[in-house]
């Protein structure tokens, strides 16, 4: 699906099991000119990611079915694309959670941000900033 606002096609997948949150992010990023893919849990997200190869993934850590960290680790093991696609983890867990910090370190390139502290525009900025660092793939 081509998006009509900007010439580049950038696909973001939003995996959130919170429909409200997913909706906010999906609509925002669509408005900002991104092509948005959505998944409601880790399993579905993994499938879609491998099929569509989005440029960046926004991933919620706490989900039913397969939780965020598990899905991310699986993704990294899949193939070379899976290893290198940047992922932004969205969480409300406190930042001094050891498992979180270790997980982020292990699954680079990965970043996390605490949803409660970030405005949605901040999230858009972060995505934009991260993508501008990538060499655009054909």
């Amino acid at each position: 699906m081509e998006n009509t606002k900007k010439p580049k096609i950038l696909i973001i997948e939003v995996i959130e099991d919170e429909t409200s949150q997913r909706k906010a992010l999906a609509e925002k990023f669509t408005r900002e000119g991104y092509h948005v893919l959505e998944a409601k849990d880790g399993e579905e997200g993994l499938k879609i990611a491998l099929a569509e190869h989005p440029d960046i993934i926004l991933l919620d850590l706490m989900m039913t079915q397969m939780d965020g960290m598990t899905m991310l680790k699986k993704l990294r093991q899949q193939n070379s694309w899976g290893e290198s696609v940047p992922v932004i983890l969205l969480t409300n867990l406190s930042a001094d959670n050891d498992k979180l910090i270790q997980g982020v370190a292990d699954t680079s390139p990965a970043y996390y941000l605490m949803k409660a502290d970030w405005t949605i525009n901040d999230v858009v900025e972060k995505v934009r900033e991260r993508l501008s660092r990538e060499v655009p793939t054909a």
Partner: protein
Amino acid sequence: MDFIPTAWLERLSVRGKLSIIIGLIVFLLLFGFAEFTFGMKVMSGIRAYVGGEGLWSKAQKAAVNDLTRYSESFDEADYQSFLVLLHVPLGDKQARLELDKDRCDINVVHEGFLAGGNNKEDLDDMVFLYRRFRFVSYMDSAIRTWTEGDAEIERLLTVAARMHAVVSASHGPLDQIALQPQIVPLMEQIHTIDQKLTVLENRFSATLGEGSRFIRDLLFWVTLVGTLVFGTLALLIVLFIRKMIIQVDAAKSEFVSLASHQLRTPATNMKWFLEMIIGGDAGPLNAKQKEYFEEVSENNQRMISLVNMLLNIARIELGTFKQSTEQIQITELIKEALKEYRTLIGFKSLTIHEVYAPDLPVSQIDPRLWSVVLQNVISNAVKYTPSGGTVTIGVSFKEKNETFGGRIMRDDSIIVVITDTGYGIPKDQQDKVFTRLFRGDNVKEKDTDGTGLGLYLVKLILDHLRGDVWFESEENHGSTFYLVVPVSGSIRKKK
């Protein structure tokens, strides 16, 4: 530990557990008291009998003495004296015989013992000992000896009566030599009886002595074992209760933690949608709509701050808050905290003075904890100072053993002093300042925005850091807050 029904104990209510503890303590006290009283009563009884025996044997010996004199003096007075003296052993005998009856007349017993020269205050204990311990080995043995002694006294009286008959029939002391062949054998018999009585008297005391030593040892062991058993039991229960209290505390903090996490989700959702509405993403808003949505957004933000604060408190109380320290210059954190309130400061035209000591070292501190503390104290200063006021922030460094504010520094410490010209804290409320949900009555009306948790959290964090926080304040003049935090690993800049 299996014999203690831990599952049942855990399910007991707090009141139930308390009842058990109190019951145990009361029981222990009563047991101790009963044991002591009993021991004392028995020992006192034994002492009375030994004393009684002393009087018994002295009376008996004196009686034999008088009888011997009588055998030479032929003086009736001596014989009478002999008889009177024997009232002592006879009185005791009366008591003994009465006590051996199934239904005894206590007055007869008392009368007997009193005749035996015993103190009336001892009578109860003597009766108690006899009645309760009649067949216990030591007592039984002593009473047998006593009975034998009484039999000897009977024999003594019989022989003495014979002598009395002989002397009464005579014509006075002049017949004494003539009556020798009759008197001498009688005296021999009396002498034998006296000797036998000596043995019996000694045996009686010795037996009672052994009995009392036995009781002493018995009581010692019973007390020791009892103390150990109950002491251990009480200790185990106390430890158990302590574990419960810790668990309850932890559960409380965990609940707060869980609730806070759950609360964050809808709050975040609302935050983002509000942001998009206010930003015009869903279409243009009229002024009133924008105003109302901004109110909603502010309230939501307040809720998020409150939740964050509750979470911090829960984590510190639970001890799950892990410190991560860095080498940081405190002044940086202060400047960051001031930036947060830049708009409010500008809006109120507040003057901010920053007074930093020139030799402030870079210190190893946890920036997150410090940020929370600084933000809270600075926020209070800024919020509660009216327009045009001044807030002064001073930072200095004191080495170990230097003094500040009348306190000696236990370690190298950083001192932060924040002074404002604000509303102050009323004197009668100053002792509640660091409690949860405290907000001064004087500011509650002026600004409904505070959570009342800020200073509680500050104190919690300072305690956690082993620091100190105190303040001085005067209503309508302003307040000064002092923060002292020990820092190790500080590298002091060369002056």
